[in-house]
């Protein structure tokens, strides 16, 4: 590690410690415990709870070392939120538009030459982009919102490490970018049991039906082995859908824990999210959300959160 980065991390670690000590008293007397395994290494995972979306984001990203740790000057960046459904933000079916806007702005601030936002929606694309509020928010923040409603926007690539899924058509914007940020929203899911960072990959591909016919959980783990990995996973858990997911019926399906998870490790962030969601829906656990462990078997990351540097922030 470069000296500068080391110092930066050390300082941030110290700040994080201070912040945690000061604010932890609100959580019924319990102190969220940071797990810093190796002080010489940067933070692997940040979990934060209790703030508004933009604030959550800025607190968490600074713990991670700032966006410049992930995005370099002049890079073409893709921010890939979940915009699956023709639903308004309060239904928690799509990522919070405020979070998307904050990420886009931060990427541009870090020197990105272009930020592209897209998702292969399940509901009609145009309506989903509109209702989610993400199209408007992302454009305002300076991103380009790419079309993703037609097969012609997807190009076939091979997934050499896939067990069930060896090739897939992936969106051209993602193929063309220098770095991408995976931005899922945490939801219960009828098929995969939970949708979060790894499941969010299904929005970069065209033929999702193939996943369902070829062992959904394995295919989800397989697609995450695609050679271009996200530089960062940012899980929106400001509002979460705890039942009837991923589309949801009413506002009754939504809880508002005001949380965020961030990690470079996609397996770790999904593990954290799964344990978090398990507190709201006892049916969600690491056993039923089996793609997380399958991801670990693919060496995409670790499910052992004690083995990595974790910072927890809570109001």
């Amino acid at each position, binding site marked *: 590690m470069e000296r500068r980065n080391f110092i930066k991390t050390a300082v941030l670690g110290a700040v994080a410690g201070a912040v945690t000590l000061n604010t932890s008293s609100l959580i019924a007397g319990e102190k969220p415990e940071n797990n810093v395994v190796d002080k010489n290494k940067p933070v692997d995972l940040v979990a934060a709870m209790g703030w508004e979306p933009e604030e959550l984001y800025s607190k968490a990203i600074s713990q991670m070392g700032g966006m410049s740790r992930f995005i370099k000057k002049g890079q073409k960046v893709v921010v890939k939120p979940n915009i699956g459904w*023709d639903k308004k933000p309060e239904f928690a079916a799509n990522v919070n538009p405020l979070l998307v806007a904050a990420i886009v702005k931060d990427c541009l601030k870090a020197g990105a030459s272009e930020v592209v936002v897209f998702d292969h929606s399940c509901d009609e694309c145009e309506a989903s982009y509109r209702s989610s509020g993400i199209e408007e928010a992302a454009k305002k923040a300076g991103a380009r919102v790419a079309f993703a409603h037609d097969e012609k926007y997807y190009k076939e690539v091979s997934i050499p490490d896939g067990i069930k899924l060896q090739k897939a058509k992936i969106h051209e914007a993602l193929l063309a970018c220098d770095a991408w940020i995976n931005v899922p929203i945490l939801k219960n899911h009828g*098929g*995969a049991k939970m949708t979060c960072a790894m499941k969010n990959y299904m929005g970069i591909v065209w033929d999702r039906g193939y996943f369902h*016919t070829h062992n*959904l959980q*394995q295919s989800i783990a397989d697609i995450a082995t695609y050679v271009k990995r996200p530089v960062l996973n940012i899980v929106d858990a400001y509002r979460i859908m705890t039942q009837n997911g991923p589309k949801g*019926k009413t506002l009754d399906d939504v809880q508002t824990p005001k949380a965020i998870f961030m990690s470079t490790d996609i397996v770790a962030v999904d593990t954290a999210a799964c344990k978090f969601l398990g*507190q*709201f829906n006892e049916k969600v656990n690491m056993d039923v959300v089996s793609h997380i462990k399958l991801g670990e078997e693919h060496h995409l990351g670790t499910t052992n959160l004690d083995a990595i540097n974790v910072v*927890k922030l809570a109001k």
Partner: protein
Amino acid sequence: MKWKNVRVLRIVIALIFFATITLSFLFFSAGKLPFSHLLDTIQFGPAFMAVFVGSALPFIALLLLTIICGRVYCSFICPLGIWQDIVIWIAARFKSKQQRRFKYRKPNVILRFGILIIIALCLIIGISYPFALFDPYSIYGRIATNIFNGAVQGINNGLSSIFPASVSYMAFSNITVWTFVVASAFFCLVTILSAFWGRMYCNTVCPVGCFLGLIGEHAMFRLQVNESKCKECGLCGLYCKSECLDSKNKYIDYSRCVVCFDCAKSCREGALEYRFAWKKSKTQNSLEKGKIQNPGRRDAIFALGTMGAILASRKWGRKIHPAKAAEEEKEGSLIPPGAVSIDHLKEHCTACQACIAACPSKIIHPSITEHGIDGFMMPVITYKKHFCSYDCNACSQACPNGALKHISLEEKQLTQIGKVQFTAKNCIVFKEGTDCGACDEHCPTKAITMLPHKKKPGLYFPSVNKNICIGCGGCEYVCPASPKAMRVIPNEIHEAAQKPTVDKQEDIKVKDFGF
């Protein structure tokens, strides 16, 4: 008053109608123009159909308009008529002065009344299909969706390959071959006739033109030759695109006059005036009575009477007509929410394609064989390319006829157009023993829920509650199994679905992240 100025007004109004109606059929603007629906509803076909399901007001307004002003509908309002005027104008740019001239022509009585009578008889016994085929607004709708929209989409897709970031690619998914063929046939017929013979189509084929002619012939206001001003130069006859002005005899066949004011513009003396005509109808326009017959007001009354009979008889007529018996043997097809039933649709739809153009998910297509012969080109839903958006009722809002009732979003979300049918042996969960749940993902009412598999812990399979299913087809579209495990079986008569269950949840506050 300078009557040629009215011509300018006519052109302005006509272009507003034409542009708005055309835009309401183009993919980028369909369903997005707030006032286009109003302009659609006062079209003859829609107004006539609305008498049975919606309001008789637009139809009465049209009749009154014609009784007072003559066939202004054909020049100001009808998009097919305006299209012909545009063709006539363009064709004139390519013609010599000689070729540009029109000349008085005798009406083709057999053809125009033949078509009208056949269509009227069909309407009386409850077959509205021939009317749907010949209603000029609906013809224009089919031309606009198939040809104009197709062309615009082609241009759009060309642009989308040049500007991929800003122009969205649109697949040609809602055009079917046979509708395209029919639309093209009418397009060619109308365009060619108008390029060479003015408003020939309106006065020989169009049943609406013929019917309005019967009333327009005796309109309160008509274009008349002011004999004190007329220099008998014969210029007006050369400009009459309906070819109904016999300048030699100073005779105007008002049953064919579309009140375009072109003659008034052509006259250098201002001798053609749009005047109150009821008092003078006996002396006017019949200098040589022996030569040209003026059929009298009887026809107009007869026409209105026939129309009344049609209106009265259609309610019971539908019950006896032969196509109905045949339908019952067929498996049904899905029709848009608001259509009430396949019978209701067939009775009131004129196949104008407005709903097809308005559907943002492009799941409504013109029927080829799905609805039978008498449902050709009427809307049918398939879930091959997409499914019906839960938060959308665009089709029912677009229908100008009342063939699709104007249902609110809340009503639409409880309108069951079909019921889901689950075939377990096709389902991935049972066949492969792996998770799937694509159907459950897409179900907006949670008529599909995932239940734990008894023998394989951790595995969940779909279970359906047909009572809350609205037949949106999310499950059918997305089901990855082949053959599909989820299929929507059409309701021949739409039913009311039960309200989705509410799964109350306490506000949960967590103390920790859970790890």
